[in-house]
Every structure is written in structure tokens, then in C-alpha cells.
């Protein structure tokens, strides 16, 4: 038996897809058998099982390991198989073709760097042939070959092969997918798998095995701008290590990093690693890395680190192509958990633009839900701003999954940024923060001196709900406790800072809120706890509080909503006060919230102790 003794230099993940019974598992078995890659006795063992069950020998049984799979003659779940050829270690994933197991096919394909798509020469292009072709493209698998199988059943005729190639190329062309090859084979008889077919002298292209060797490892990602999704922050010893996977680009010690969406910045001090001598000083795409920074900024899981010249997008909405695998249909208006890289945030489907029929790529408009195994174009809206990219430019930060209850129920790629109404203010905040001139005193120095961190308590609500009274009470209590707090009343801006505004502008929220937000931002930078009400904005408090939030970001906002009768508070409200207010109790609740969020130290003194980093 021929044995492969070369040392591997790299791994490549391949997936085999296509309609059920078109011969995927058979092709895989044949590939192993014809290259001498099966362990001793494996073939004989399967032969014995087949004989015992009174069945014809099937190569497919080599990897369809479950009893039920062999009994029904189908692949239920993907199998990872290992294959060494010419200095490369392949992990080949055999995907099920049955539409019931589409989620397993997708799990297999999502891991792959290249694919083989099988079409039965006798049956021709079927429903799942098309769906799988479309999904490969959606999943980002751009390298693939189309294998036209069972050529033995059509007398090895070239015209049959040509007909399928023409039809399928046209289909793929509609979404600009271009296969590397079309290969005529018989998996069962071994034509053009590892060995060149004697029966198809009209074909001079590569065999399946040659095609695998020609697939390339994606290496271009290191040349892209940097994307590092923060996975976690560790403090097991003296080092505060930020970990994550570099999904694009490279970084090195000394680089200035910007974290989005918080806009926090710092330089890389070290690259940390265990048992690597000498200690590394750089990293590149693909690596799971750990870095320390020259400043103790608080960054958390979900932020994307990049260089300042190439920032990711930040918004609360984007347009996407999605496939749905959930048992329950995806519904417009329902809440789901969105995961983009390491970020998790609540979201809802703002609109479903169309359902795409993968059979003919026809588009069906105006639906309120997406059923299991359907593909759709939609817009998602998130509860808080997220950093992301368009999938056309960055694969890993341009795709997402949706979690419904406990399960990943769908996935997709981001096709378009949707501008939200905070876009201009967010851009202003970003530019202002990047140019911010700092003194020698750091945020942490102030916190240590004051026994608390800076924050803003934002009290919203309609008229005569007691906002001003509560604000005053809270300011008084904080100062009595030895904290540095200040009541920022909008009235004080109106006659001074806002004096240049026209009567009309003063009647509108936009510019007034912007100025108020910028003043709050300045006060927060001095280390104060700013207590504020949306009084000057009257009933436009929702709009105003959104603007203020955007401008003071990423400082902690403790949102308190007051109303006489129960009503829907603005999004992200922390403390809801309804009905007649017990102001002492309300103050106590806000103080608790400040502690819980890590704003107030547990004890004031020479060495304040904060429960959480913020």
C-alpha cells in the first residue's frame, strides 16, 4: 500500500456539498481508498458489516459512522476526516445533502476554506445543488470546484457533462460565483478521483486530487488593515492582558490602537505568550493573541481594535443577507441576541426586504417572517452601537449570527451600513476624542483621589414628575457623602452658551442637546459625577437623551426615568420610578446603581476600592 510520508506544512479545510445521493460520501471514501489513506482493516471491517446486513458494499459507510446513517444510507451529520497529501494536511468535511440537515451542511461549510460541489450527471442540477452553491457564496467559501459525478451512468458522454456545466455556470453567474473547475468523475468506479479516467479521454483537466492540491490557503488577510476582536481581559497575575483573535492585518509593540465602539485608545506595550522564547513582539491574522497596553484603559469583550487610519463602522443598524435555521420562524419586531465577532447585543429585525428563493433566485417581497432554511435580505437594529465591517471587505467582522433563546438560529453577512440618527454626533465625538489634549493627570488618578469615577446620572420624564427635585436631592446626598458631584441645569446654558442661538433654534432639540452633551462631556472629563435632567428639552427628552448618550460615550450613563403613571421608559433605562415618589428611597436606589456599575468606590479613604472596572 502506498503511504504518504511527507511532513505537513499547513492545514486546509475542505467541505463536500451537493444534493442528497449525488455521491459525496462515496467520493470521500474513494479518495481515501485510492490514495492508500485508510487505516488497515477499515475497508474490510465495512465490507463485513455490509455483508452481514446483506447489502452491497458502499464506500459511503466508511464515514457514515452512525448505525442510523448506514441503515438509511444517508449522511446525517458532518464528519471531519483527515487526509495527508503532498505536504498538506486536509480536514475534509463530508456534509449531508438532505434538506432536513441543512444546518449541519452549513456548520460544515462555515469551517471550510474550499469546497467540492457534487452534481449527479444522471439527475442533473437539483434543488440542493443550487441552494448549496448559493450558501457557499453567502458563507464566504470562494474557492470551489464542481464535480459532475456518476458519469458511468450516462455512458461517460461529454455532451451531458457540457450541458450541466453550462446550466450551472449560468446559475452561479447570477451571484458572481466562479468555480475553479468542472470535473467529470465516477466516484463509485474511481474515474478522475485520484486516477485519471480511461473512459473520458475527452477531458484533460485536473482530477479531484489535483484540484485539492491547487486550492490555496488564504493568506491575504494579513495584508488587510488590522482587526482584533477583544475576546476577554485577564488579570491572573501582575499583567492585565487583553486577548483576542486577530481576524485581519497585523500588529506590533508600540502600535497605537483604537477600540471601537468606545473610541478608547492606547499603545501596545507587550505581546504576551506562554513558553515562547524570545517573547514575541508582533502578531498577525489568524493568531489568538494577548497584549498589554501602556495605559490602564478599560476595554471589554466585543470591542474591535484597529489602527486609527482604518476604523470599522459603528452604527445601530445594518442591512444583511441571512439564512435562517431556527425551529421557529424569524419574525419582524421580535428580539434576538446578535453576535458579531465577540460582541453580543440585543437586536430586532427592523424590516424584511425580501425572501430569496434559491431555486431561481427570484425575490419575494413583503414578508413578516423568514421560515426555516430560507434566505432573506433584511435590516437589523441593535439596542446599543456595534462595531462591524461590510463582509465584502472584512470576512470575520462582516458576518454575524442570531441567537433565539438558547440556540444559534441563523447567520448572515453584512452588506450595507444603515445610517442612524446618531451618526453625525457619533462622528463628532470620535473626531473630538481622537484630538483630545490630555494633561499629566489620568482618569485613574482622579478616581483614586476622589473615591469615585466620573459618570452622568440622566433623569428623564414628562413635566412635573419631580425630576429637578430628585436631581437636587441626589447632588446634595453625593456631596454630603464626600463625592464630587455637580448639577448641570440646562437653564444655565440657555442664557450663556446658547445665547447666540436664534429663537427658532432654541425651540428645537438638536443643537441645544448637542451643546448640553458637549458640556457634560467636559465636566465628566474633570472626574465629576454629573447630575442632569432633560428639563430644558420638555417632551423631547427621548431625542435629547439619545444625543447626550452619544456625546458622553463611553462614560457610564445611569438613566433614571420618572413618570406619574406607568409608561414605556426610553431604551436602556436603569431605574424606573413610577407614581408618587419617595425621594429618599429613589436616591438610595440611584446610589446602589452607581455602586453596581463601579462608579462609586466601596470605601472612600487613602486607597479606594472599586468593585468593577469601567
Amino acid at each position, binding site marked *: 500500500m502506498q503511504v504518504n510520508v511527507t511532513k505537513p506544512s*499547513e492545514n486546509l479545510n475542505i467541505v463536500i456539498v451537493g444534493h442528497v445521493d449525488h455521491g459525496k460520501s462515496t467520493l470521500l471514501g474513494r479518495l481515501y481508498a485510492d490514495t492508500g489513506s485508510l487505516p488497515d482493516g477499515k475497508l474490510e471491517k465495512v465490507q463485513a458489516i455490509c455483508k452481514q446486513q446483506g447489502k452491497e458494499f458502499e464506500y459511503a459507510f466508511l464515514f457514515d459512522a452512525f448505525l442510523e446513517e448506514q441503515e438509511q444510507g444517508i449522511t446525517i451529520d458532518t464528519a471531519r476526516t483527515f487526509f495527508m497529501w503532498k505536504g498538506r494536511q486536509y480536514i475534509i468535511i463530508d456534509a449531508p445533502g438532505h434538506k432536513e440537515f441543512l444546518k449541519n451542511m452549513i456548520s460544515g461549510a462555515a469551517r471550510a476554506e474550499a469546497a467540492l460541489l457534487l452534481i449527479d450527471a444522471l439527475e442533473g442540477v437539483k434543488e440542493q445543488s443550487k441552494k448549496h452553491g448559493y450558501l457557499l457564496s453567502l458563507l464566504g467559501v470562494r474557492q470551489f470546484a464542481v464535480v459532475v459525478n456518476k458519469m458511468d451512468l450516462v455512458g461517460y458522454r461529454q455532451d451531458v457533462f457540457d450541458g450541466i456545466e453550462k446550466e450551472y455556470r449560468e446559475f452561479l453567474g447570477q451571484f458572481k460565483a466562479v468555480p475553479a473547475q468542472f470535473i467529470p468523475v465516477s466516484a463509485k468506479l474511481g474515474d478522475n478521483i485520484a486516477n485519471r479516467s480511461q473512459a473520458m479521454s475527452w477531458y484533460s483537466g485536473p482530477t479531484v486530487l489535483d484540484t485539492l492540491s491547487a486550492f490555496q490557503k488564504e493568506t491575504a488577510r494579513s495584508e488587510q488593515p488590522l482587526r482584533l476582536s477583544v475576546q476577554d481581559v485577564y488579570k491572573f*497575575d501582575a499583567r492585565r492582558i487583553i486577548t483576542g483573535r486577530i481576524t485581519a492585518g497585523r500588529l506590533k509593540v508600540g502600535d497605537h490602537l483604537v477600540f471601537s465602539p468606545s473610541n478608547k485608545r492606547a499603545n501596545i506595550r507587550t505581546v504576551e505568550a506562554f513558553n515562547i522564547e524570545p517573547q514575541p513582539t508582533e502578531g498577525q491574522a489568524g493568531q489568538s493573541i494577548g497584549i498589554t497596553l501602556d495605559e490602564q484603559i478599560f476595554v471589554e469583550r466585543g470591542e474591535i481594535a484597529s489602527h486609527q487610519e482604518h476604523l470599522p463602522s459603528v452604527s445601530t443598524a445594518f442591512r444583511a443577507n441571512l439564512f435562517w435555521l431556527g425551529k421557529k420562524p424569524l419574525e419582524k419586531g421580535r428580539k434576538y441576541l446578535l453576535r458579531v465577532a465577540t460582541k453580543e447585543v440585543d437586536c430586532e429585525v427592523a424590516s424584511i426586504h425580501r425572501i430569496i428563493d434559491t431555486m431561481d433566485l427570484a425575490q419575494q417581497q413583503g414578508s413578516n417572517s423568514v421560515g426555516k432554511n430560507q434566505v432573506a435580505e433584511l435590516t437589523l437594529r441593535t439596542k446599543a452601537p456595534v462595531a462591524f465591517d461590510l463582509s465584502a471587505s472584512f470576512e470575520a467582522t462582516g458576518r454575524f449570527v442570531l441567537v433565539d433563546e438558547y440556540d444559534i438560529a441563523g447567520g448572515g453577512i453584512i452588506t450595507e451600513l444603515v445610517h442612524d440618527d446618531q451618526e453625525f454626533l457619533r462622528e463628532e465625538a470620535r473626531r473630538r476624542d481622537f484630538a483630545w489634549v490630555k494633561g499629566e493627570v489620568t482618569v485613574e488618578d482622579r478616581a483614586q483621589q476622589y473615591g469615585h469615577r466620573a459618570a452622568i446620572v440622566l433623569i428623564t420624564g414628562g413635566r412635573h414628575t419631580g425630576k429637578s427635585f430628585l436631581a437636587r436631592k441626589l447632588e446634595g446626598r453625593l456631596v454630603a457623602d464626600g463625592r464630587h458631584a455637580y448639577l448641570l441645569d440646562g437653564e444655565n446654558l440657555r442664557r450663556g452658551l446658547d445665547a447666540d442661538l436664534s429663537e427658532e433654534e432654541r425651540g428645537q432639540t438638536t443643537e441645544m442637546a448637542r451643546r448640553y452633551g458637549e458640556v457634560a462631556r467636559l465636566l465628566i472629563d474633570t472626574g465629576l459625577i454629573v447630575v442632569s435632567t432633560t428639563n430644558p428639552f420638555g417632551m423631547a427628552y427621548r431625542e435629547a437623551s439619545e444625543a447626550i448618550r452619544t456625546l458622553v460615550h463611553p462614560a457610564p450613563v445611569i438613566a433614571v426615568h420618572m413618570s406619574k403613571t406607568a409608561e414605556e421608559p426610553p431604551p436602556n433605562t436603569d431605574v424606573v420610578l413610577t407614581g408618587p415618589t419617595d425621594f429618599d428611597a429613589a436616591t438610595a436606589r440611584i446610589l446602589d446603581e452607581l455602586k453596581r456599575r463601579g462608579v462609586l468606590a466601596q470605601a472612600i479613604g487613602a486607597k479606594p476600592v472599586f468593585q468593577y472596572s469601567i
Partner: protein
Amino acid sequence: MKHLRQLEDQSVYILREAYKHFNNLAMLWSMGKDSTVLLWLARKAFFGHVPFPLLHVDTSYKIPAMIEYRDRLAREWRLDLVVGQNKEALAAGMNHTLGRVVCCTALKTNGLKQLLENKGYTGVILGVRADEEGTRAKERYFSPRDKHGDWDFRDQPPELWDQYKTTFPPGTHIRIHPLLDWTEINIWEYIKLENIPFIDLYLDKGDGTRYRSLGCAPCTTPIKSTAKTVDDIIEELRHTTVAERSGRAQDEGRGMELLRKDGYM
């Protein structure tokens, strides 16, 4: 070597996801080559620390050298070692002569289930590899087990890109498999690359035999081999066409499929 670093990066990513998402997390350590590489990868992921307990389900039939090795590394690497044992079954005289699947179920599967239940672990990290046998080839990196610890292989959750199943209903738990993409050769290549200490039962010490896979003493037989160093093992594996677990009795017939549906590692 590049391929080993690619495997390492993926495993480290999975370990960090596990640590982030599971408050009550533990890692199974059988002292064999795979789970020891897994342990090493945890030290990689957490920069020299192992921030969760290591569980050893002791069947009492392990080879004594393995216990010595376990206790030595636990000391040197400051590990939080938790040893579990199905004492009831052992007291009742459970052993392999009563049937291999019966014995494995009682001492390993049930021993593990008892341990998980007592300690309330919701995430368990295991060193199983896809190339070991057919049902493991179909595993997910994050694989849910129901209230009875059973595996529903017909309905596994989707695993998309680097997004794994990390939420689950109360009473159930998740098995985490960071080594799925590693082959037996990769394990040895990595042991060599990182100079990881391993039990010398894997080497021939002059009698022309060595263990290729370590389980309980009565059910694991050594193979004929003159591999005296890690390099020898790697060279031998590059040329062999004998399955790794051919010396493991539980793999005969449909033994492994039955065991694994029931919650075996």
C-alpha cells in the same frame, strides 16, 4: 510547524470562549497524551495559569505510573485536581470481566456523571479528537448534553464560523472539544515542539512494545514498537496504517457509539 500553530490558535480561541461563557467550568484530564496536550493548551490560553479544576475520573484500574505522573504535575503546575470515583460500583465489584461496555458505563460514564452532578459543572472540556473514531468525527466544538448527560447526535446545534453554542437550559451541560481538528501525529509533533512532559509508557523501553493509547490496564494492550523517542513515534505514525485505538477493547463492534450516546467521553 505552521500547521501546529494554526491548530493551537484555534484551540486557544475555543478555550478562551469556554472560560468566558461558563462560570462552572472544568477540564477532564486522564493523563494520556491528548488531555495532557489539552492541559498545556490551557496554560497557553491563560498565560501559564489553569483557571479551572482538572477532573480525573479514577476507575481504580489505571496503571500506577499514571497516578504518580498526575500528582507530580498537579504539584508542579499548581493544578486544582479533583478526583472522582464511582465507589458504589467498585464496592459492588465492578470490573471488565462483567462486560466491557458495562464496566466502562459504570466506572467512566457514570463516574463522570456523578462528578458533574455533585459539583454542578455546566461546561466540561475534553480532549477527544475527530480522527479517533467515527462518532467523534461528527462532534461539535461545543456539544450539548441533556439532563441525563446523553448526546443527541441527530440534532446537533449549528456551529457557524467562530460562534459556538454557549447558552443552554438549566440542568443540561456543554461538552467542549478544543482538540477536534488534531490528529494523533499532530499531538506528538506538538509535544515535541513545546517539550511537554508525558508518561514514558508511550515509549519502548527495550522489550519492543509501547502503549499507543492509554486506558485502564486490563483493557489496553501495548503495541509492538521500538519507538524510543518522540521522533521515533512521529516517524512510526507517518508510516503506519493501523488504527490508533486498535489496542482499545471498547471500540469493538458498535461499543463506542453506544457508549458515547450515553454520555461517554
